Each structure stands twice: as C-alpha cells, then as structure tokens.
C-alpha cells in the first residue's frame, strides 16, 4: 500500500498537521479549565483530610475521612444558619418574583403616563452595588428599630432583586400572545386572573430564570447580613463562614473547607438543574 500512490504522503502530512493544530486548542483550554476548577477541587480535597494531613500539598488524602462534614453538620447552629439562608432566599425570591410580575405585566401590556420614567426608576438601581448601600441602610434600619430582624433582610434582598427580575419578566410577558388574553377578557376574566392564569403559566421559563438568579443572589449575599444583623440567631451560612475564617488561633482548615463546600452544593445543584436558563438569564440581563 505504501507505494501505491506517490501523491499520498504529501497529502497526509497536512492532514496530520491540521489534526494537531485543531487539537492544540485543548492544551490551553485544559489550563483554563484547571484555573476554574483547581481552587474548588483543592478545597474539596482538603475537606476529606485530617487536620494533620491538611498541610501536605498532596491531592489525595491517605485515609479520606468524612469526619469534617460530620463536625460541620453537628456544629453549634449550623442547621439554624442553613435554615436562615434557605428561608431568606425563598422569602425574598418569592416576594421579588411576585412584585416584579405585577410590574412587568404593567410594563408589557399598558401604555400609561410616566411609563418610561417609572421603568427607569425601577431599572436604574441596578447600578447600585450592595456593599455601597450598607451604611445608609444600617442607619435607616436602626432608626426604625428593625436591626437584627428577618423583615429587614427580606425587604432589602427583595428590593435589590426587583430591578433585574422586572426587566427579564417584562420581556417574557411581552412575548406572550395577546390574543389569548383577549379571548379570556371577552369571557370576563379580570386582570388578576389574566396575569396568574394566562400570562404567568406561559412565561414559566422566565419565572424560573428570574427565580433562580434571585435565589443565587440571596443565598450568596453577605454585606447586608453583615451590617444588619447582630445576633447569631439571624446569621446565614456565608456570614458564619466569614466568622469561621476570622477566628483567632490556628485555623481548622479541613472544617472550614468542608463548610465552604457545603455552602456551594445547593447552588451547584440549582445550576446543574437550570444551567441553560441561568446562562440565558445572565446574558439577557447583561446585554439589555
């Protein structure tokens, strides 16, 4: 076969070169994927190590232990912080999605006076970063005697979630065919019924996008809970993680890493379940 055609070798060489060049992409890409994952994987590795082993720069522990996770789960207040995080995330997300749906419906379906101004009033606060607001918010919450309450946290979380949620939902609601509503209106459906029975069920993908983005924000939130709470009863997981790190003396790194991984897992599950929605939500939120 080798000498069957003299033109083969020169033709094969470029093919080979092209194959190598095509696959060369994978080398830098592997480096970048490593950059994305190594900090997390290193933390996972440490969470299975014993306190003595943790200062060995080895990836795999000699005798992997679940002890650190057990210690975190049994530590004082862990479940309290966990439930606080869950409660605050669900309550603020529920409230934000509800309030934003109403506003989004008005923006998608009505031409009314000051529509643009009101839309700007709701959208512009997206440029306000959370951390920058903690000083005046602390003063406001303190002056009405609501420091260290769930209500103060829910209200502030909700307020920061509304701008993006309203924006995304307005787009989704606007895409719902108006003919469906007209038919229902002729049958005597009220606005309330049209919103919740027709528009919202059709715009479920939008509701999921908005809900997941808001859950993520609230679950990861730190500045507000740092500034607005004082007692350990109101602490959330990120706050407790921050305090763990802040403790003086020798750091119990296996424990801290196990705690870190446990706070990441719920959001990771959410991400795996709704990856496409999150990505499209993030891009549409950024680009418009």
């Amino acid at each position, binding site marked *: 076969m080798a000498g069957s055609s003299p033109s083969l070798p020169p033709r094969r060489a470029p093919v080979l070169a092209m194959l190598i060049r095509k696959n060369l992409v994978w080398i830098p890409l592997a480096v970048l994927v490593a950059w994305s*994952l190594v900090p997390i994987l290193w933390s996972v590795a*440490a969470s299975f190590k014993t306190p003595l082993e943790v200062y060995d720069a080895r990836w795999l522990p000699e005798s992997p232990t679940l002890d650190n996770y057990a210690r975190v789960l049994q530590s004082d207040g862990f479940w309290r912080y966990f439930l606080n995080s869950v409660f605050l995330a669900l309550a603020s997300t529920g409230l934000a999605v509800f309030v934003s749906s109403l506003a989004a419906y008005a923006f998608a379906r009505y031409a009314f006076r000051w529509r643009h101004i009101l839309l700007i009033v709701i*959208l512009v606060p997206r440029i306000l970063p959370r951390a920058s607001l903690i000083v005046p918010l602390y003063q*406001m919450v303190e002056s009405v005697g609501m420091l260290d309450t769930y209500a103060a946290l829910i209200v502030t979380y909700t307020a920061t979630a*509304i701008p993006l949620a309203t924006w995304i939902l307005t787009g989704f609601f606007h895409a719902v065919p108006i003919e469906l509503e007209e038919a229902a209106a002729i049958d005597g459906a009220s606005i309330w019924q049209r919103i919740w029975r027709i528009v919202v069920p059709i715009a479920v993908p939008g509701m999921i996008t908005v809900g997941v983005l808001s859950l993520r924000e609230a679950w990861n939130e730190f500045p507000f809970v740092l500034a607005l709470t004082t007692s350990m009863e109101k602490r959330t997981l*990120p*706050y407790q993680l921050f305090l763990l790190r802040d403790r003086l003396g020798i750091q119990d790194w296996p424990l801290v890493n196990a705690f*870190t991984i446990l706070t990441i897992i719920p959001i990771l599950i959410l991400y795996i379940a709704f990856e496409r929605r999150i990505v499209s939500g993030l891009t549409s939120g*950024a680009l418009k």
Partner: protein
Amino acid sequence: MAVDNIATRELPAARRRRKWGEILVPYLLVSPAILFVAGVLGYAVVNGFVTSLFRVDIWTIGRPFVGLGNYLALFRDPNFLNSLTRSLIFVAGTIVFGLALSMTYALLLQAVRSARGFLRSVALIPYLVSGIAAAIMWRFLFTGEASLVQATLESLGFGQMTWLGHPDRALAVVTLANVWFISPFATLILLGGLQSVDQQLYDAAAIDGANWFHSFLNVTLPGILPMLSLSLMWLSFASFNMFDIILPLTGGGPGRSTEVLAVYMYQLAFRNLDYSSASAVMMVLLVINLTLSLLYLRVSRVR
C-alpha cells in the same frame, strides 16, 4: 437599558372602556415594585447623601451641618487616598488580567467543536460561588508553608515566599481571586459576541488569504467590540465595588495594602463609627459607578 424597544400593545377591551378604574390599573400594578426600589434603594442613596453633608459620629453631639466639609476632609485623608490608589491598582489589574483571560477562554471555547456547552458551564462555575466561599478557597491556596501554591512553586525551584503577609503580593492575590470570581461572566459575554459574528466574514477573509491573526484583527475584533466594552465595563464595575472577596481574604491588610474603597467605607462606618465620612466615601463610589454606567449606555447606544 434600552427602554424604548418594548412596544406596548394594549388590550382593545381595555382601550374601549376607559373608566377611572381602568386607568389606575397599571399604576397599581407598578406601585409595589416602585415602593421597594424607591423606598429602600432610592431612600438609602438620599439618606447617604444627606448624611455626607452633616457630621455624624459618636464623638459629635447632634448633627451639625458641615456642607462639603466631609468631602474636603476625605481628599486630605491619607487613608482615603491610599484606598483610592489601591482600588485603582486592583481595578486596573483585574481589567488587564481578566480581559486577557476571558478573551482567551472565549476564543478557545469558540474554537472547540465538541463539548462546548459543557465547558462553558464549567467556565461559569466560579461565578456561582459566593464571594465569601471564593475568598476562603483562595486564602487556603496561599496559606501555610505547604500550601498548594507554595508547594508548586518550590517544586519549580522557587524558595519560600510570604503571600498574604506581604503588602504587594497580598494585593496581587486579591486581584487574582477577584479575576477568578468575576471574569467568568465576562467570558460568557464575549462568547456570546463571538457567536454573533457573521461566519461569512471569516470565509471572505480566508479567500483574501488572511491568516488567523489578520482575521482576528479585522473580523473578530470589530465584530465583538460592543461585547468587549461591555465586559470591560462589567469587570471595572464589579471590581470597584468589591467587598465580599477582600474582607475574608485579607481584611484590607496587611497594613492597609488591600483596603479598597468599599472596605475602607465599611471600616469607617462599623469600626470607627464615623457614619458621615463613610457616607462621603459611598457617594464617591456612586459617582464612579454612575460614570461607568453612562459610559456603558453610550457604548450600547453606539451599537
């Protein structure tokens, strides 16, 4: 925020019988959202601005009006000027490194044929983690004589180095952690841009005999310019306000070497109980954000 691109379509039924109740409906629907946003966020800004015009701390009796006094004091305060400088270095470092990284990431993701969706999901993972968790993980990478970074460097022949205890290196570590945390979003934006570039332009360039670099320069770059400025804006915006990453990673130290604006503002308010100076720093931060956002609006208009 292109407000105008949503055309409104009204229900004809609603248009026909315009009763007072009907006219009020949209306002009623919008009012809870307005109440939250204006009542909490808007009021906070106003409140912060007002506080910045008075002297409000625990040593002063009452709230004397000082006009722009807090701002004048701020720009004479070496610690504020330090935090402004640190912020600028932090932001510049993040932009340079973050943009190069996310551009490379996006180009490589665009170049692969298989598993692109999966790899994109992996690239976005750091963005999902909380700032606190990201900071803790990065602290762990650099802590101790046998930390991962230290061990890796030693196996490459470098000696023992302090990282978080060294002023300049601590700032470098904080910047790296910040890039890790916020650049996935920039990658996502840039990848979106790359996918929207007309494929025919590349074919035309190839016919003209352009090599990879030429077609990148003449086709890709102009095509993704809006996305490029958008990710630039995102990186600077997120970095100027970064708080979650820095407080757990270095707490602003060693000394004041990583005390960027948001951290300095926090220390002023909650450690020194000097609310008026903290509010003045907040206003400086808001002016920076407003400037960046106006730039952003201009850029997206041009598009």
